[in-house]
């Protein structure tokens, strides 16, 4: 039995099936059931990534889960926001700084931020869907002059379960970004909108002729949001959704993540809407 020691991760992993070891630098609690991990390789630098891509994070002995990048490309670490929904995500959420995880990636394709020069950007995020969009927001804001209007529409459950609240408030201060946040229900202390995200779309200020929409959130929310975006006049080829399916290998060999003709791990997760329009609203595809 030959041995390939990968005790130190350095640059792109040579074998995409074998995890590299990463160190937990920082753990921040976002919500009662959601944490953000900052991960860096034991030595060397982490691979480059595109906003919208994901890594497979491995909790020792338990399993792997696909988590999108949610950090700034300029940071040296990988930043992952993880919600506790199962055995693996719960184990990852309980890590403390200094512990290690396995990491494979980056996999998948990214948001079309580099091809959208001159476009109005409409970002529609629901709940945890803001996490895979945050790197795209960072990239857009870092190069703001390349784009027309930038609109961020974010919906979540209630004001106490709001991801990245501090950052949302910072973005709200900017004069070159329109942000609207809405919640499903609230108490009287909330002075913002109450209602579903699609409701924000008709009132958002963008030119549908030159708008590109990036949508991420629970699939139901994406479906209704896409309808509202189409109603507002945005072309189907200019709408991008981020799909989520069961991931095992993340390299297009195990067959699990198929959604119609696409493998979400390599043809996605970012998917141009017109390519899946006929199956997007179908049950159990």
């Amino acid at each position, binding site marked *: 039995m030959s041995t390939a020691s990968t005790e130190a991760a350095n640059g792109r992993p040579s074998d995409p099936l074998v995890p590299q070891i990463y160190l937990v630098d920082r753990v921040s609690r976002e919500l009662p059931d959601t944490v953000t991990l900052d991960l860096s390789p*034991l030595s060397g630098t982490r691979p480059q990534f595109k906003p919208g891509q994901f890594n497979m994070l491995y909790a020792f002995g338990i399993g792997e889960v696909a988590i999108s990048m949610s950090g700034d490309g300029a940071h040296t670490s990988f930043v992952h926001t993880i919600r506790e929904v199962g055995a693996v995500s719960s184990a990852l959420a309980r890590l403390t700084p200094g512990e290690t995880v396995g990491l494979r990636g980056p996999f998948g394709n990214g948001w079309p931020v580099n091809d959208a020069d001159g476009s109005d950007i409409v970002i529609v995020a629901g709940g945890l869907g803001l996490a895979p969009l945050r790197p795209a927001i960072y990239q857009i804001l870092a190069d703001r002059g390349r784009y027309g209007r930038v609109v961020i529409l974010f919906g979540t459950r209630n004001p106490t379960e709001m991801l990245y609240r501090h950052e949302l408030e910072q973005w709200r201060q900017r004069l070159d970004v329109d942000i609207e946040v809405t919640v499903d229900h609230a108490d009287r202390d909330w002075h913002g909108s109450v209602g579903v995200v699609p409701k924000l779309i008709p009132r958002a200020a963008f030119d549908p002729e030159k708008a590109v929409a990036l949508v991420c959130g629970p699939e139901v929310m994406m479906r209704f949001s896409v309808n509202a975006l189409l109603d507002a006049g945005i072309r*189907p080829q200019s709408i991008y959704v981020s799909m989520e399916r069961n991931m*095992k290998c993340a390299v297009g060999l195990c067959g699990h993540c198929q959604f119609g003709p696409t493998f979400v791990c390599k043809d996605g997760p970012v998917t141009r809407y017109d390519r899946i*329009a006929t199956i997007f609203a179908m049950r*159990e595809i």
Partner: protein
Amino acid sequence: MFLAWRRRRHAVCGVQLVRGSDGVGACTDGVGPRDNGIPDCGRNQMSNSLASGATVMISREGLESLLQALARRGYEVVGPTVRDEAIVYDRITHVADLPVGWTDRQEAGRYRLERRSDDALFGFNVGPHAWKRFLHRSVETLWTMRRTENGAMIERDDNAGPKFAFVGVRSCELHAIAIQDRVLSKGPYADAAYAMRRRDAFIIAVNCGQAGGTCFCVSMQTGPKAQYGFDLALTELLNGGTHELLVEVGTETGGDILRQLSHRPAGEVERAAAAAIVARTADQMGRHLETAGLKELLENNLNHPRWDDVADRCLTCGNCTMVCPTCFCTTVEDHSDLGGMSAERVRKWDSCFTMDFSFIHGGSIRKTPKARYRQWMTHKLATWIDQFGTSGCVGCGRCITWCPVGIDITAEAAAIRADPEAQKGRHRGDA
């Protein structure tokens, strides 16, 4: 086997092959790939040397020598043999290990062995095993990991296993192997162990002397004649007192091994007899699948009532995926010891029929048997073409034979074709 592209010649006409953009070999002056990606060579010239395309005759003893020669060269020889009342693929040493004098009777949901009135070595069709059990192993440890002071150490087993010699690969199976080649070793990420096993495998094909009860290779243009993808191809000629095999050379490697065995050139009569056998087999197909427009038909009928109909019958047992020679889906299991100091990841065959297959937090995407059957059939016959350029089905009939309730993929497709729903109103955003 696919390394020396420059020296490869087309098995039928001997014309030098060029590698197509999809990795499939095509004649430089052949008709070009059909829509299932397999080249169609109209020529029939044979070379007289033991170069590719040459045809010789060997006896049953010659085949025995061939098996010994392969074993001496370090191949693990596997082929059909009778076991557990079926013809399975397993290690064989002698010609006598083959299902001599046996045939199979196959129908939807039914498989029985029967004695033949002759001693044919290959007088049967395909059984529950496919060659994927050797190439795309059903259980494989991907890596093991041990905790260390400053992290962990990962060990990967690079040993791909023995090199195989496959004896008795049918034409449909050659196509199935080529299809799995495309899926597993020609995508953006290749399965290195699979690619190594493929490269090292020696393939002896067999042209079917009769069609199986559930066969429809003619519909899928995958047989019955073995066209390419083999080192040697046999056609058994058994009439009255003579029992010989016509051997067609497919590659230089095949020619090399054959050259050292006792053989004589095949004559026109023998070649004609072999061709007649194949033609007769082609006429005997037990099934037919209309493939014209099949992809669009299924894509436009995802809500056809027939899916409910088949769901009433389907047990979601997954037999079809286990016996299908192109089904490739796998899952991974992570194990660790009780102390949490070491862990391993094991890859296993999986089936899209399991409840877990499409599970994400909150539940499975495809909960109902209807959805899971629809996924398997539409993947096999429609979306596979989008993904890999060919149909995923080779018409071997195994899924029909081994379905406990006899669901017939050709009948399901025909039922939808007979009564297609009017195309629904175009969905928002159709390109």
